[in-house]
């Protein structure tokens, strides 16, 4: 389960928008804003502060030991990162992880489930929805352990494959990045499913029925009618899924610790290893800053999507 801001469904305040008893002067404005101050202080100290510190640290060579000796090193951390094979490996794995688990996995499976649920009988719908949502609500680390047990050589997946007379494998060794990607699909699909269920519910029944009577088959209806009608939900959902997937740490940590070797080491795990195994706080922060910049860009696109929606 992850933080996922819902789009503004703000009941519009209407023409008599609240403006308070009388029109405000500067002092009055300040008095009105006063209740926001504890929150603003908290955000400035513990969120804006670290982000500012992140920008500063990324250009220093701060180490875990010997705090006093850190000095400004300019872009050295960044040039080092882009010349480092392990970093490029982490970038590549993060891309694979995001594309497989978020873009393809959660998004497509979530949409498919939502579409199927509209046709399925009620008990099946409730049962499936319930199971998928439980997977989502479970704490991240618990989900990690459950899927660790599922993908291990002695685990459930291989038991099922044996039973079907299919070749079993040591999944966590042969395809660790796919194992953690599937784990993320298991854990995150519910969110997309809920988003798409809500979106599909808002399509008027007459539209799909008319198409059906006109003889448009299921796939054509989906492609030409349903998908264009929910394209904004698709946009927001992709954005939120991607942002969530970029910052997955606990799930991968519990399942593989980024291993074997570094074959499932995505950027957050690489950053952690650089900071604490290799004691290079400055360098790790530079990597963090890159992650933050990518996240911010997605964030801005997301806000733009919300704006065009309104």
């Amino acid at each position, binding site marked *: 389960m992850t933080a996922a*801001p819902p789009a503004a469904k703000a009941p519009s305040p209407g023409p008599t928008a609240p403006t*308070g008893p009388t029109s405000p002067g500067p002092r009055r404005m300040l008095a009105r804003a006063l209740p926001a101050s*504890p929150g603003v202080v908290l955000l400035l100290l513990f969120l804006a502060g670290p982000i500012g510190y992140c920008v500063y640290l990324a250009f220093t060579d701060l180490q875990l030991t010997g705090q006093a000796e850190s000095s400004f090193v300019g872009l050295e951390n960044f040039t080092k990162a882009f010349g480092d094979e392990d970093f490029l490996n982490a970038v590549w794995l993060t891309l694979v992880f995001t594309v497989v688990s978020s873009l393809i996995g959660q998004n497509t499976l979530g949409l498919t489930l939502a579409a199927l649920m509209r046709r399925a009988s009620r008990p099946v719908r409730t049962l499936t929805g319930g199971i998928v949502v439980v*997977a989502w609500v479970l704490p991240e680390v618990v989900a990690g352990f459950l899927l660790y047990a599922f993908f291990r050589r002695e685990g459930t997946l291989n038991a099922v494959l044996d039973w079907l007379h299919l070749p079993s494998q040591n999944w966590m060794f042969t395809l660790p990045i796919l194992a953690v990607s599937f784990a993320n699909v298991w854990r995150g699909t519910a969110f997309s499913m809920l988003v798409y269920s809500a979106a599909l519910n808002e399509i008027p029944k007459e539209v799909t029925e008319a198409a059906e009577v006109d003889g448009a088959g299921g796939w054509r209806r989906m492609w030409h009618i349903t998908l264009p009608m929910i394209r904004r939900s698709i946009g927001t959902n992709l954005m939120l899924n991607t942002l969530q997937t970029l910052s997955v740490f606990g799930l991968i940590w519990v399942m593989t610790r980024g291993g074997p070797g570094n074959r499932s080491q995505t950027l957050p795990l690489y950053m952690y290893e650089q900071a604490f195994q290799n004691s290079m706080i400055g360098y790790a*922060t530079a990597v963090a800053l890159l992650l933050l910049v990518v996240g911010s860009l997605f964030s801005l696109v997301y806000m733009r999507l919300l704006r065009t929606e309104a």
Partner: protein
Amino acid sequence: MSDAMKPTLAARRTTRRLTADVALLAVAAAFVLPLAWVLLSAVDADADLRVKVPDEFTFANFDAVLVPDVTFTPLLNSLILCGGATLLTVACAALAAYPLSRYRSRTGRAFLATVLFATCLPITAIMVPVYAMFVQVELIDTMHGTILFFAASQLPFAVWLMKNFMDGVPKELEEAAWTDGASPFQSLLRVVLPLMGPGIAVVTVYSFVMMWGNFFVPFMLLLSPEQMPASVSINDFFGNRGTVVYGQLAAFSIIYSTPVLLLYILIARRLGGGFALGGAVKG
């Protein structure tokens, strides 16, 4: 013509429903396997990594983990950490949402845009600088430091949600209080908040659930084992105890997950079945 079409359309719908049922059940089966493992292993005297019906049914795994060191202390730590941070978040969010919801100003809009932007930022990315900062200001390995960071990290989303809920309380209801000479703070406390009970419940439960499951923040900011919440201490089943007793791990997972599952059901019910957080993302 439409009479002639009806049976075929109906027949087609039945086939379609059956296909959909079968497909959904297949997905459900795949999703349920890991869940079945944790449920069955917890009551299995000899659990391993596979799903299997226990040869010997037992509560010994629960007995073994229900001791202070393994369960009670970590859960209490989780409760202090997440409870404290949730209270702080909800209080700050309610106060901040009030001017945002009641008055319109350029500053307010800019603040709201910043808040929305911040809800999307990957908190994982700033944990290394937060760690470095906490070392500098000596907040590292303290419960109150971790609570403050938790509260701040959850606050943007809480403000955003709270503001949307507060917009649903009509301003007219407050005007009576205003004419009676109540200050905005009094009218927030006595009129607005009591009217948005379900909204506050959602913000509270959601913040709490998010923090209860969060692993990375306490993992980075707390160091001493006796302060660790359940999300971090659960890893001890692997690290420090030699061979892994899977049955106990499963039993502990169930104990640790139950509160958030119950809380989720509580808010899902409140919102009339459909899940408002997902449902609020409109198409």
